[in-house]
C-alpha cells in the first residue's frame, strides 16, 4: 500500500512537472490546473522548478531588441524575378562559346581528312571502297597472310580501295578524336609487321603501296579477307561489302571526300577494339 502511494505520488509529480510551463502560460485546463496547484502545495522540488522556469521566462522577456544594422527595403533589382538559367546572358555566352569550339574542332578535323585524302588521291587515283569493312564475314580475322581466299572474297575492284584507307586509319596507339588523325597518317605509312599480334592489322591493310614487305596493297588486302581466329570481329550481315562498295562507287566514282565520313564511321569500332 505504501509502495502504491509512492508510485502514485511519483506519477503525479511527473505529470505536474510537464504541465508547469503551460501552467505559467495559463494554458492548462481546469483539471490540470487543480492537479498542479494541489501538487505544488506539497512538492518543494516542483516549487523550485516553477520559480526557475518563471525566472527563465522573465529573462527572455527582458532580452533587448537589437538595433538594425541597415534597412532591408528592396531595390527594384532585388525585387526582380530571377531569370531561368538558360535565359541568363552568362549561360547563353557559355553555350555559344562551347558550340563555337566544337564547330571549329569538327570542321578542322573534316578539313584535315579531306586534305589528306586529296593529297593521297594524287598518287593513287583509284576510287575508294569498303572492302575491308568489318561487317563482312570475311573480315572476322585480319592476321592471316593467306592471299588466295582473299582474292576470292574481294569486291569488284579491291585494289582501288587500299591507298586511301591508309589515310583514314590512325595508329593503334593514337587516341581517338581529332588528335588521332595526324598520327593515323604517319602510323599507316610505316606498317610493316604483319606477324606482330600487338600491331594492328588495320595498319597493314591500309599501308601505303610504297611500304616494304607485306605491307603492299595485295598483302594488306589479304589480311582483311582471310578468315583466321586471331581477331574477333562482330558477325556481319550478308554481303554488305559489295552493297556498300557499290553505293560508294556510284556516289563518288572517283573516291574522294564524300567517302570519308561513312568509311570512318565503319572503321571506328575497329579502332576502338585496337586500343590497348
Amino acid at each position, binding site marked *: 500500500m505504501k509502495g502504491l502511494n509512492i508510485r502514485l505520488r511519483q506519477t503525479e509529480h511527473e505529470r505536474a512537472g510537464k504541465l508547469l510551463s503551460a501552467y505559467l502560460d495559463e494554458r492548462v485546463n481546469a483539471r490540470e490546473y487543480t492537479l498542479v496547484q494541489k501538487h505544488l502545495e506539497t512538492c518543494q522540488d516542483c516549487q523550485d522548478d516553477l520559480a526557475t522556469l518563471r525566472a527563465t521566462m522573465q*529573462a527572455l522577456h527582458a532580452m533587448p531588441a537589437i538595433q*538594425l544594422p541597415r534597412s*532591408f527595403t528592396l531595390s527594384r533589382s532585388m525585387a526582380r524575378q530571377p531569370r531561368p538559367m538558360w535565359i541568363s546572358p552568362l549561360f547563353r555566352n557559355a553555350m555559344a562559346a562551347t558550340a563555337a569550339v566544337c564547330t571549329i574542332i569538327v570542321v578542322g578535323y573534316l578539313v584535315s581528312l579531306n586534305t589528306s585524302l586529296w593529297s593521297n588521291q594524287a598518287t593513287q587515283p583509284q576510287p575508294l571502297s569498303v572492302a575491308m569493312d568489318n561487317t563482312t564475314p570475311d573480315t572476322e580475322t585480319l592476321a592471316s597472310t593467306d592471299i588466295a581466299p582473299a582474292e576470292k572474297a574481294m569486291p569488284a575492284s579491291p585494289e582501288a580501295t587500299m591507298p586511301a584507307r591508309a589515310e583514314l586509319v590512325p595508329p593503334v596507339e593514337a587516341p581517338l578524336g581529332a588528335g588521332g588523325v595526324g598520327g593515323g597518317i604517319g602510323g599507316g605509312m610505316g606498317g610493316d609487321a604483319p606477324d606482330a599480334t600487338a600491331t594492328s592489322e588495320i595498319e597493314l591493310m591500309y599501308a601505303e603501296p610504297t611500304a616494304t614487305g607485306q605491307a603492299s596493297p595485295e598483302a594488306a588486302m589479304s589480311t582483311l579477307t582471310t578468315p583466321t581466329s586471331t581477331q574477333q570481329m562482330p558477325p556481319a550481315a550478308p554481303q554488305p561489302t559489295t552493297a556498300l562498295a557499290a553505293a560508294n562507287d556510284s556516289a563518288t566514282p572517283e573516291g574522294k571526300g564524300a567517302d570519308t565520313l561513312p568509311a570512318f564511321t565503319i572503321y571506328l569500332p575497329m579502332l576502338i577494339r585496337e586500343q590497348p
Partner: protein
Amino acid sequence: MDEQALIKAAVGGDIDSFNTLVLNYQSQVYNFAYRIMGEPDSAADATQEAFISAYRGLHGYRGGSFRSWLLRIVTNACYDELRRRKRRPVTSLEALHVEDPTPDAELPAQHQEGPEGYTARQELNQAIQLGLAELPEDQRVTLILSDIQGMSYEEIAEITLTNLGTIKSRLSRARAKLRDYLLAQGELLPSEYRLDNEFA
C-alpha cells in the same frame, strides 16, 4: 494606407508599398532572425532573403496575419541558412562568446540600470543567446516566438505549421533545457529577475 491595401498594391508590383511593409516589420523580423542565428551577418542575410522571397511570393499570400506569414518565411530562410552553416561552419563558439550585439538605444531598461546591473544583464543575455543555440531548432524557434517575441500559442502554431499540443510540448522542453543551461552556467536567477512565487 492600411496593411491590406499595401499588400494589394505590392501584389500589383508596387515596390514602394511593399517597402512600407518592410519598414513596419524589419525590426521584428531581424530580431527574430538574430535570435535564431546568434550572429548579425547571418541574421541580416536571412532577413533580406526573407523579404525578397516574400515580395516574389506575395501572390501566394492567402490573407490572415501578414506578420505570421512573414515570420514563417523568415523561419524557413533561417533554417536554410543554418543548414548552409552546418555544411560549411564559419562561426566558432568563441566568436559567439565575444558577440556583442548592439541593443536598441531606445529601450528604457538600460537607462534605468547602473553599470553593474547593465553588465550583469549583458552577461545574462549572452548566456541566453548561447543557451538558445544549444536548443534543437524547432524548440528554439518556438521559445523565441513565445518568450521573446511574445506571440500566442495560436500564432506560433500558424507560423510553424504545427498544432497547439506540439507547441506546448516544445515550449516546455525548451524552457526546461534553457533553464538547466543557465543554471549550469551560474548565470541564471539574479534575485531581481525573480518574480514572487505567487502565480498570477
